[in-house]
């Protein structure tokens, strides 16, 4: 039986960022993950490090996102120096495109409210068509304008995941592809974690299994009412540089391919693709950048978002099971730096970051702690 200080269940971006944070602070960490095929949002997402528009209902989410965004460059640099893997993080600001004056106006009202709620920490600018055209010469005539924020950027989420995994190893952490964790039991002061292939004991256990948290959380007195929400994405052949800043549903990757898509589909545990949805995404992209019409799609995919009922994250320590925690969110790229640098220390005993206090399951008005 393997033993460790921290067992992080789930090797997606959330679990890996946390495990990296813990390992880099000298803790002994093991990540327990499923195999090659699994629901793994971290492998199918869009790669935005995004702040604008987030936290409309709970401004502390905006602050949490900004905290992460501001630590992203340093994290990226640190990972590169440690592992040689570049995350391709860039922070040129990002735009959200609007297609009518009314849409622009309401966008401005929303973002202004958000800015106010964060004491103007969140800042943005509205751009008309010609200002937008200066930023993106290929922009389509039917795009009325956009909102722009310097807080936004993007990265290659796959290289981020790879860099985190490599970084964890550099700091002595272990990545164990143990298969699905089935059972978590308390045994005295520690936890016994049973998976298909292995049994592991740990002093502390962190549930970061994405949608898999649904089944694991109740075993340690937590609640994770998560809902899968599918997003489909299209990617094109590599292009010469043509889009030097990300938009909410269109960005050019470091390799040159154009990534597009932002469907939100309530289809349960189905990560397939559907032609009408793909066609819609294509249409929208061509509307934004008409010159893309002749660009070839080489691949598409669907991936499941890890969604709570209100879309905000879930960070919680179990009351009934000391040393057990849960962490999940649907912006695991954006929040990677905060997870590594601010959340991980909390699991290791530091104060909880002030931004995360609203994000317990109590807000869903359900009974969360069951007696141990």
């Amino acid at each position, binding site marked *: 039986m393997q033993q460790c200080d921290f067992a992080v269940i789930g090797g997606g971006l959330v679990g890996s960022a946390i495990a990296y944070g813990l390992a880099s602070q000298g803790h002994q960490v093991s990540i327990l993950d499923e195999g090659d095929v699994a629901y793994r949002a971290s492998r199918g997402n869009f790669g935005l490090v995004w702040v604008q528009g987030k936290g409309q209902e709970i401004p502390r989410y905006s602050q949490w996102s900004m905290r992460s965004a501001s630590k992203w460059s340093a994290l990226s640099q640190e990972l590169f120096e440690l592992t040689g893997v570049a995350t391709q993080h860039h922070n040129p600001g990002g735009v959200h495109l609007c297609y009518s004056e009314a849409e622009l106006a309401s966008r401005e009202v929303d973002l202004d409210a958000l800015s106010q709620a964060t004491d103007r920490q969140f800042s943005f600018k509205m751009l008309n068509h010609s200002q937008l055209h200066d930023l993106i010469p290929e922009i389509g005539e039917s795009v009325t304008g956009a909102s722009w924020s310097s807080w936004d950027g993007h990265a290659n989420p796959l290289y981020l995941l790879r860099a985190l995994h490599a970084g964890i190893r550099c700091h002595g952490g272990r990545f164990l592809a143990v298969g699905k964790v089935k059972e978590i039991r308390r045994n005295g002061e520690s936890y016994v974690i049973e998976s298909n292939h292995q049994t592991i004991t740990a002093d502390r256990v962190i549930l970061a299994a994405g949608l898999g948290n649904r089944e694991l959380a109740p075993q340690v007195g937590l609640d994770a009412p998560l809902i899968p929400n599918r997003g489909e994405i299209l990617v094109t052949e590599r292009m010469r540089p043509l889009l030097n800043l990300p938009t909410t549903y269109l960005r050019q990757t470091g390799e*040159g391919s154009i990534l597009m898509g932002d469907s939100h589909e309530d289809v349960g545990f189905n990560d397939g693709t559907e032609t009408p949805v793909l066609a819609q995404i294509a249409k929208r992209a061509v509307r934004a950048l*008409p010159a893309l019409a002749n660009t070839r799609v080489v691949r598409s995919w669907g991936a499941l978002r890890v969604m709570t009922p209100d879309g905000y994250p879930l960070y919680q320590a179990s009351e009934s099971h000391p040393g057990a925690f849960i962490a999940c969110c649907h912006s695991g790229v954006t929040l990677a730096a905060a997870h590594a640098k601010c959340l991980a220390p909390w699991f290791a005993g530091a104060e909880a970051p002030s931004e995360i206090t609203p994000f317990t399951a109590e807000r869903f008005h359900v009974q969360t702690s069951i007696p141990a």
Partner: protein
Amino acid sequence: MFKRLSPPEATNEAVVTFHFDEQTVTARLGDTVAAALLTSGISICRSTPVSNAPRAPYCMMGVCFECLVEVDGNPNVQACQVEVRDGMHVHTQQGARRLTS
């Protein structure tokens, strides 16, 4: 490098003329662009977007995507899957494709 068993001019097969970069090339009607290039002494059709390495048709059956060229302004076309046409303009595919309209 490839040659014809019998040149199209020698038989009475139809011949087409097209352009590859700066060259004018003659081919047999019905040839794929890849076959036409390979039989005209052209052995490289693109450079990769990753390392700029030179590449040439490899499988001739549409699976390897090594034969990418620009055909009449249309980048990343599989040369082994497209038939030559009279007056066609074919160019080497240099690295990643450019935007066209």
